[in-house]
C-alpha cells in the first residue's frame, strides 16, 4: 500500500511495553462527556448502590451507548459537576446478572449478527468502533462494506497494539472471529506494522487460515494508522456503505463482551511524554481518579495533560476528575515557559526539525527531543515553503487552502478539497510561519457541513431561473 506524506517525530517518554496494574481506587469519577459522547441520559439516582456493569447513563444521540459501572459502588450524582461518582468501591468483583434484556426488533430481524451487535452495544464494546470516514460512532445493526482493524499506533503516544495483544493473543483471534460473524462476506483488513519481530510472526501465524482476513502491512509513519487514510488507501469508497474501524483494544473488547459476556470497562492505556517519571502502560478502568495517576507519574508541576497523543489528543482540563471512557493514553508535556535568548542563532543541537539541516542536530544520530507546548515562533504570512504539502497524508495542498480561507473564500477552499483533510495536524506542526492550518481546516469543514452552501443555492437559483 502506498502512503502519501507522513512524518515521524521522536519525543522523549515513549511508554515501555511493561503493563502495570493500578491500585484499586477508593472512588471512581466517571466523566459524562468524552470526545464523542455526551451521556446526558442518567439512569441511576443519587445514593443507589450499583453492581459492576450496571448502566449508569446513556447517550441518546449515539444509539444509546451506555456508560457502565466499572466497579460496584455507591452512586453520587452531586459530588462533582458533570461526573457520576462511585464511592465505597467493592473490592471483590460482584458480577451483575445480566437481566436478559430483550433485543430490539431490528436486532432480532437481523438474526444472530443482530443479537451479537446488540450485545456489543449493551456491554460497552460498541464504543470501540469508529466510522472510518467520520470518526464518529457507526450505526449498529448494519452490515459494513469492510472492517479495518489496526494494531499499529504511530502517534506519540497512544497505547501500543502489540502491548495489548501480547497478553491476550487468543482473545484477539477470537475477537476477530466474532467480528467476522457480524459480516456476510465482507473482508476484515488487519493492519500490522511492516516490521520483523517474533511477535509479528506470532500474530500472523495466529490468523493464518482465516481467509476473510486480509493482512495489510503499513510503514510505521504517522499518520498511516489513521482510519480515514487507511480506508482511502484500501480503495473503500464511502458510497459503497460504511467502513467500521477499530483498534486492538476494540477487538479485545468484542471478545470480552461476546465470550465472557462481561462489561468492557477495563482498559490498557499508555502514559508517556517528557514530563512523566516512568513511561509505561497501565491496566485500569475508566473513571480512575486522574490526580492519583498524576501524583505518582508526573514529575513536573507546570504541565499539560493530554488525553491521547500529541497530535490529535485533547487537553484534559482541571475540572475533569477521572479517566474518561474513550481515553487510550495520557501524554504529559511540560508547558512552555522559557523565553529563548537569540533563538534564531542557536546551533540547535537538541532541536530536531523537518527542515533537517536548519539545525546542527542534523549531525547527530537518532535522539529523543524534549518538546514543550511552545509554538516555537511567531505567526507570519505563508512563505510557500511547501513543507505542509510534503507531509500531508491526504494529498491536498494545505498552503493553497490556507490562502483561500485567508481571503474568506470557502467555495474555492471546497474546490481545493478541504474536506479531504483528516486532521492529523502535521501541516500545523511543520509550518515555519506557525499558521494554524489544521484548526482552520477543521473550522472550514464545520462551516461547509453546517451552512447551506451559497454555491448550491446559486445553482438552485439558476435552475429556477431556467425553468421560469
Amino acid at each position, binding site marked *: 500500500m502506498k502512503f502519501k506524506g507522513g512524518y515521524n517525530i521522536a519525543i522523549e517518554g515513549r511508554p515501555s511495553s511493561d503493563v502495570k496494574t493500578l491500585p484499586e481506587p477508593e472512588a471512581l469519577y466517571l466523566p459524562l462527556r468524552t470526545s464523542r459522547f455526551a451521556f446526558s441520559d442518567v439512569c441511576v439516582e443519587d445514593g443507589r448502590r450499583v453492581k459492576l456493569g450496571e448502566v449508569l447513563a446513556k447517550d441518546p444521540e449515539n444509539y444509546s451507548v451506555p456508560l457502565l459501572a466499572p466497579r460496584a459502588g455507591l452512586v453520587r450524582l452531586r459530588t462533582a459537576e458533570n461526573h457520576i461518582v462511585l464511592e465505597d468501591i467493592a473490592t471483590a468483583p460482584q458480577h451483575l446478572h445480566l437481566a436478559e434484556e430483550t433485543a430490539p426488533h431490528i436486532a432480532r430481524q437481523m438474526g444472530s449478527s443482530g443479537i451479537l451487535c446488540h450485545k456489543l452495544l449493551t456491554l460497552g464494546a460498541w464504543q470501540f468502533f469508529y466510522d472510518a*470516514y467520520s470518526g464518529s460512532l457507526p450505526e449498529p445493526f448494519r452490515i459494513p462494506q469492510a472492517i479495518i482493524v489496526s494494531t499499529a499506533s504511530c502517534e506519540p503516544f497512544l497505547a501500543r497494539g502489540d502491548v495489548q495483544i501480547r497478553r491476550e493473543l487468543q482473545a484477539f483471534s477470537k475477537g476477530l472471529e466474532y467480528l467476522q460473524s457480524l459480516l456476510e462476506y465482507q473482508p476484515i483488513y488487519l493492519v500490522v506494522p511492516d516490521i520483523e519481530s517474533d511477535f509479528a510472526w506470532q500474530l500472523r501465524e495466529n490468523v493464518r487460515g482465516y481467509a476473510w482476513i486480509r493482512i495489510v502491512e503499513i510503514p510505521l509513519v504517522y499518520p498511516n494508522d489513521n482510519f480515514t487514510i487507511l480506508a*482511502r488507501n484500501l480503495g473503500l469508497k464511502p*458510497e459503497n456503505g460504511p467502513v467500521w474501524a477499530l483498534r486492538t483494544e476494540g477487538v479485545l473488547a468484542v471478545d470480552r463482551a461476546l465470550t465472557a459476556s462481561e462489561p468492557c470497562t477495563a482498559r490498557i492505556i499508555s502514559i508517556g511524554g517528557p514530563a512523566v517519571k516512568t513511561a509505561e502502560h497501565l491496566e485500569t478502568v475508566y473513571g480512575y481518579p486522574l490526580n492519583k495517576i498524576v501524583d505518582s507519574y508526573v514529575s513536573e508541576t507546570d504541565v499539560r495533560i493530554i488525553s491521547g497523543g*500529541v*497530535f*490529535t*489528543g485533547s*487537553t484534559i482540563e482541571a475540572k475533569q476528575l477521572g479517566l474518561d471512557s474513550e481515553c487510550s493514553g495520557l501524554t504529559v*508535556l511540560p*508547558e*512552555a*515557559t*522559557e*523565553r*529563548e*535568548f*537569540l*533563538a*534564531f*542563532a542557536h546551533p*540547535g543541537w537538541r*532541536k530536531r*526539525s*523537518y*527542515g*533537517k*539541516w*536548519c*539545525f546542527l542536530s542534523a549531525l547527530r544520530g537518532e535522539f529523543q527531543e524534549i518538546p*514543550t*507546548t*511552545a*509554538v*516555537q*515562533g*511567531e505567526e*507570519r*504570512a505563508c*512563505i*510557500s*515553503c*511547501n513543507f505542509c*504539502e510534503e507531509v500531508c497524508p491526504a494529498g491536498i*495542498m494545505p498552503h493553497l487552502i490556507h490562502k483561500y480561507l485567508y481571503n474568506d473564500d470557502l467555495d474555492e477552499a471546497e*474546490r*481545493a*478539497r478541504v474536506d*479531504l483533510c483528516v*486532521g492529523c*495536524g502535521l501541516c*500545523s*506542526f*511543520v*509550518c*515555519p*510561519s*506557525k499558521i*494554524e492550518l*489544521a*484548526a482552520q481546516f477543521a473550522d472550514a469543514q464545520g462551516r461547509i457541513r453546517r451552512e447551506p452552501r451559497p454555491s448550491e443555492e446559486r445553482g438552485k437559483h439558476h435552475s429556477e431561473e431556467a425553468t421560469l
Partner: protein
Amino acid sequence: MKHLLNLFEKLRPGFEKDGKFAAFKPVFDAAEHVFFAPSTRTKHLPHVRDPLDVKRFMSIVILALMPVEIAAVYFFGLRIVLMIAVSYIAGGAVEVLFAIIRKEQINEGFLVTGFIFPLILPPTLPLWMVAVGIVFGVVVGKELFGGTGRNLFNPALVGRCFLALSYPAAMSAVWLSPGTGFVGRAFQYVDATDVQAITSATPLILAKQGQLAGLSDLFLGRIAGSAGETSALAILLGGLLLLISRVANWRPVVGILGSFAILGAVLHYVRPDSFGPVLWHLFAGGLLFGAFYMATDPVTSPITNGGRWVYGILIGVATVLIRNLTGYVEGVMFAILLGNICAPVIDEVVIRFRLWRLRDER
C-alpha cells in the same frame, strides 16, 4: 540577559495601546523578539510544533549568503559592507514605516532582500543609488502589493531593474577589476574615483567582442561583475546549504540550470559563433546567483512543485535567448522577472490539474 529582559518589561507599557509610543509597537515587538523568542503556548492541535520558524529560516538564507559576501569583500573591498549597511538602513526604514502604518509585525524577509540587493549591484555604484534602488524595490516591488508574502516580483530585482533603466551608465559600464593575491581587496575601500581599478567590461561584454575569460577565473570569481555574482565557487557553497536545509526548493534551481545547459549546449553545437560554450556561460554573469538566491524566493515563484519546474525551465530558456540573441549581455534579471510574472498563471494551470485529479477522492 536577565537585565535586558527586565528592560523590555520596563519599556513595554509605553508601547501598549494607550502608551506614548503605541504607534511604534511593531518596532518594539521586533526588537524584543529578536532577543527573546516569545513563549507562546499552542492553543490548537497539535500540541507540539516544529522548532523551525521564519526567523531561523531567514537566518539560514543569510548564512548561505555568507560565502558570497566574503568573496565579494575579498574581490571588491570593504565598500560592499557599506553598501549592505546603506541598503539595510534605507530599506529597513521603509519596512518599519509600512509596518507602523499597517500595524503589522515587521517581517524578517526584509533582512534577506536588503542583504541580497547590494550583491547584485556593480561594486562601485554610488551609495545614494543603492538607497534609491532598495527603497523603490521595497515600496513598488513589495509594499504596494500588500507586503511580504503577497508580492508578485522579487523586490531586490525590481530595485535593480529600476536602477538599470534609470542609470544605465552607472549600472552597466562602470565595473571594478577584482582584487588578487592573498588578501585581495579585503582591506581596501575602492569607489568609482579610483580610475586605475575601474574597467568598463565584464566577461559577458567581452565575450560579445569575441574575448572569453578563463574558466578558472570565472569559477573562482576573479572577474569584473556585480558584487556577489562573480564567484561561482562561493555561490555553489552557499547554494548547497540552501538546498540541503530545504530553505530553497531544488526544483527551480535544477530547472534553470538544466534547461540553460541543455539549450545552451544544443545552440552552441548548431551555431558556435553566436552561442558561447555552455560551461563558460553557466559560470559567467549572474546565472548561478540568480538561480540559487533569487529564483528560489518562495513568495515570487510558483507554489506548486510542477509549477516550479515550468518556472525554472522558463527562466533558463529565457536567459539563454536574452544573452545570446538580444542587445543585452545579461539576461538573468529579465528572465526571473518574466518568471515572476508567469508564476501565478503557471500555478493556476498546475492547481487546476491537481484538483482535477483529486475530484474522485472521498
